[in-house]
């Protein structure tokens, strides 16, 4: 039986009076692209720091590929790669020199060829010999990813990978991460407060709030678990349309406002044609639909909206 890539059992971390993690249970299977969502201070970075052996847990257990992060530290360190939230490159050295230093610390052979492969993977071959201090934030982040992957870790942690990047740099980064899906044995654990990023990249997500896991599942499951998609139909005869729709068992929260009728349904994209058929006698003029998204789920499970910097409203 293959162990999960990451397993947390009743994991706690306290700093004096402050509780950063209050009993986290989580299991991520190998090969998964997993997203830890949550506002700043929810415990995402603390969890990653414990899993990467930088912090010791106060109680509970954390395992990476079956290895305990406290008792089997060397095995965990060999198995993981990490891309930190803040840049951790030596800015006086070039990208290639940074990667070479890393390759030496992992005692890798065939360094030059391996580094070239990594640079190609993140599209940084051309700028590899420039000092890091001359590079943009997006280029540095790509170099960090190349470094994080150079020793072929089986679990790669990415802590807020697109924080501080502009839109084109963010899209480029996502493109490079998508390519990693081809490596089936790689598990990706990314923390983010960007719902876009989680929906785009992750197979599974968990929402963290106040040091615990509030909900988990696929992005789609999580989104629809909090009330489903909403549809708004404009009718010639709204009362007639509404009563026809109310007869459907899969439709809920039907309300009439002027000529338009709003309702909620589990999966708007697949149900809409059928619903329009049923309600045709009401005289359909126009239709709008909005699919439930992770943002709704986030709002539901944390009780907060989130701004682009990850702070709660």
């Amino acid at each position: 039986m293959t162990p999960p890539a990451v397993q947390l059992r009743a994991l706690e971390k306290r700093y004096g009076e402050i509780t950063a993690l209050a009993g986290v249970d989580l299991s991520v299977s190998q090969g998964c692209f997993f997203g830890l969502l949550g506002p700043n201070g929810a415990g995402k970075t603390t969890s990653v720091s414990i899993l990467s052996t930088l912090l010791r847990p106060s109680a509970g257990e954390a395992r990476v590929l079956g290895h305990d992060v406290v008792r089997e530290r060397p095995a965990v360190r060999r198995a993981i790669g990490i891309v930190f939230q803040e840049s951790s490159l030596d800015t006086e050295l070039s990208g290639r020199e940074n990667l070479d230093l890393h390759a030496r610390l992992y005692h890798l052979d065939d360094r030059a060829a391996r580094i070239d492969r990594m640079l190609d993977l993140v599209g940084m071959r051309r700028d590899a010999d420039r000092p890091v201090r001359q590079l943009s934030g997006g280029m540095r982040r790509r170099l960090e990813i190349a470094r994080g992957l150079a020793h072929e870790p089986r679990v790669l942690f990415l802590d807020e990978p697109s924080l501080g990047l502009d839109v084109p740099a963010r899209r480029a980064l996502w493109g490079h991460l998508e390519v990693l899906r081809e490596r089936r044995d790689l598990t990706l654990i990314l923390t983010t407060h960007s719902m876009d990023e989680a929906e785009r990249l992750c197979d599974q997500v968990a929402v963290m709030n106040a040091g615990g896991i509030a909900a988990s599942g696929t992005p789609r499951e999580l989104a629809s678990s909090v009330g489903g998609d909403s549809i708004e139909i404009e009718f010639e005869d709204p009362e007639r349309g509404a009563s026809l729709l109310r007869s459907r068992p899969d439709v809920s929260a039907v309300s009439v406002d002027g000529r338009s009728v709003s309702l909620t349904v589990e999966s708007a994209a697949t149900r809409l044609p059928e619903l329009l058929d049923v309600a045709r006698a009401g005289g359909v003029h126009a239709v709008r639909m909005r699919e439930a998204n992770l943002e709704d789920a986030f709002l539901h499970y944390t009780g907060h909206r989130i701004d682009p910097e990850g702070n709660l409203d």
Partner: protein
Amino acid sequence: MSRFFVDVGTIARRELLRYRRERMFLVGQILLPVLAVLLIGFGLNRPVGELGGGIDYASFLASGLLVLTISSGAIGGGYTLIQDVQQGFLRPILVAPVSRASIVIGKVAARLLLSAVLVAALIAVLALFTSLRLPRPDLALVAIGGVTLGFVAAGILLATYLRNAESFRLIAVFATLPIYFLSGMFFPVETMPSGMRALALANPLTYGVDLLRFATTGARAFPLWLDLAVVAALAALPTALAVRAFERRLAG
């Protein structure tokens, strides 16, 4: 064990790559003492006359400036370790399967190598116009090692309390100024007024200066065993304190 030495070498290699980027600074570290010897040393040569051990003032000053060069460089070298922590550079290394000790030892090893190279280069240039030579290379290495270790450690200790570069530089200058002037670097300890001499005798660097002066000119003010004992203590005590401070810093 061999893995440990490879890691020490890797960390040292990174430091040396960084020094390579600071070539101009290193050239300055050689030019400045040479200029001081030419302008001050020879300016004072005649009024001062022959000093204890039969050397002239230019040679006396030249040997003292060797210590100034390595100690001021080393204290800044200690600071870069804390800078690495602050700038996050150490985090990926701490996650790698590398022992903590190899990080500190690698950094210190690079600094020791640099100190030795600087002293060798300075002696080569200063030998052209002073009586500076290298009759006791073994003792020179001990002095270079002790002073470098002691000051790297002092830099680490200072930097754990002073987090920003400006205040570090300011305090480093003010804290080291009396230590340098009361070490026999610029003028002999024997002829100082009694109160000043008492402070100089209590200053561990005094014995490092004396040891390197003996190794390069043959002149010395104190018994050899005393120089060696104090230099060993100068290396050991701050290093022990710095390792503890560094580990606490990493734990936080």
